[in-house]
């Protein structure tokens, strides 16, 4: 990674920081409320009072982007976190105990992976209702099997190292070995995988919003905003393109950060 690599890394960090700050400070920005309809200005380009223009219903795009960021950030970070916790709970014991528990857990994972994700999300939101919480949990459950596989593979790798044997040699039990010896080592690759999943989940939430399955309107979400502008793409492309660009930059930044962190970790491992 040269000088250029580190510049893009810091740009990515900067962008994510901006998005997070915007999501937190959304209510205090000098823009109209996100659900305030201005019937005189439908899908207008940027103008005074509407720095990024309005959407097809005359709502301020800048305000909706700010509040939509809350949805994207919460879903984007919390869903992978849910997935990581669930995945570790399944994957670490599978890798540690091998044998029958492992086969059972692997079977569950394979079943989950084979189940069509979209159908799962449809059923889940139908049963529990579409809200920020259900979307987050549903996407978390959906990513859990992949986390479990990463957790299992890394657990197997570390469980055979001699420091685990040394811990057993001083009488440490299974639980304490998993907690103290295995988990800290499995966590690093899991976190890196999580950075990849964050990008995926933000896009997935956008997709759900596009299908109208994300947070119910009129609450703003980036995916919903993109969907809202698709009918007038030829007349007012900015209605879709601005949220698309914001989402694109966010996902790209997360992935760039993930690659940089992975590079650092690989170098650390390489020294061992």
């Amino acid at each position: 990674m040269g000088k250029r690599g580190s510049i893009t890394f810091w740009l990515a960090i900067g962008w994510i920081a901006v998005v997070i700050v915007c999501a937190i400070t959304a209510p205090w920005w000098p823009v109209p409320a996100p659900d305030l309809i201005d019937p005189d200005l439908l899908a207008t380009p940027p103008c005074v009072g509407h720095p990024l223009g309005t959407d097809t219903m005359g709502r301020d795009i800048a305000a909706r982007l700010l509040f939509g960021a809350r949805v994207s950030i919460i879903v984007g970070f919390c869903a992978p976190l849910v997935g990581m916790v669930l995945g570790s709970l399944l994957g670490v014991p599978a890798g540690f105990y091998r044998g029958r528990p492992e086969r059972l857990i692997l079977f569950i994972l394979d079943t989950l992976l084979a189940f069509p994700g979209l159908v799962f999300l449809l059923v889940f939101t139908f049963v529990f209702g579409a809200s920020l919480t259900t979307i987050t949990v549903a996407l978390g459950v959906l990513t859990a099997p992949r986390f479990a596989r990463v957790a299992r593979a890394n657990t197997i790798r570390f469980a055979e190292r001699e420091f685990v044997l040394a811990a057993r040699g001083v009488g440490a039990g299974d639980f304490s070995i998993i907690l103290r010896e295995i988990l800290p080592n499995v966590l690093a690759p899991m976190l890196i995988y999580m950075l990849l999943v964050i990008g995926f989940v933000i896009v997935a939430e956008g997709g759900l919003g596009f299908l109208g399955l994300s947070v119910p309107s009129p609450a703003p979400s980036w995916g919903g905003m993109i969907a809202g502008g698709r009918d007038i793409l030829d007349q007012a492309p900015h209605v879709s393109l601005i949220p698309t660009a914001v989402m694109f930059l966010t996902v790209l930044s997360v992935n760039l950060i993930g690659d940089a962190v992975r590079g650092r970790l690989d170098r650390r491992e390489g020294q061992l």
Partner: protein
Amino acid sequence: MNGNNPKNQEPLLRVKDLTVEYPACRGRKVHAVSGVSFDLARRETLGLVGESGCGKSSLARAIMQLPKPTAGKVILDGDDLAACDPVRLRILRSRFQMIFQDPASSLNPSRTVGASIEAPLLAMGHHGREERTRQAKVMMAAVGLDPERHYGRRPHQLSGGQCQRVAIARALMTNPRLLVCDEPVSSLDVSVQAQILNLLREVRGEYGLSMLFIAHDLAVVKNIADRVAVMYLGRLCEVAQCEDFYRAPAHPYSMALLDAVPRPDPRHLLPATGMLPGELPSAIDPPSGCRFRTRCRRAEALCAMECPELREIAPGHKVACHFPTFVKDL
């Protein structure tokens, strides 16, 4: 410890008919260790020598109960470890500790050196952070690490020799009686190897340890051990005091091992032909009778039929061979 205790006359460790078998594919078994017996006296170091695949690591782990052996007894200070229940075994574990071959792999990469050294105390239930840290720092100084500089380091910031010092410190934290060293210097440079051997000798005296020292190099064993045991394909071939063994090895395999040690002497005549013809047979299906017979120049019909018992040919010098070399033959 009470000096008049009659227990002190007994050997510290008594291994009896220890057998380790692993399942292999198609229902067959790997005979890693087959009926090994030996004693280890207090403050004595026994060097266990053999090639890779001879079962010496399996033997070490069976003694450590990691995992328990398939059969046989491991009696430490009167307690049969192999028959202990897990709760009792956990208490006894402070008495026997182990050092591994690969120093980098034997330390948890995500922990600091200090945390690794303190881990045994934590596992033994010594709570009180300050006391643990104090003891760890004392131990670090004892094994030649700088307590202030190295305490917060992580394994990848240390050299191989320093990692091995950390491993030794960790093993000594529980004040053990027995230290099992599984090839502790095999992956180190010669210069570092000398440092670690010297350190082991030092702590052995200081802490009154008995040691089972595993190696594949007889020169290393000669430097540190009081007694030597040679192992081949899961069985002991020869057990003797160091002086006797190096003066007059009796088993043909011991001689081959001695021949193979590199001599730092450019005029030393190298054996022209291979010392050990053929390959190590598979431990799934070991040869009948004497397991070394397939590579032994002295093998006769008897060797294939009958397994030679470990018998005494001189006081304290035991050999498992039908045709051993006696001192008078030399």
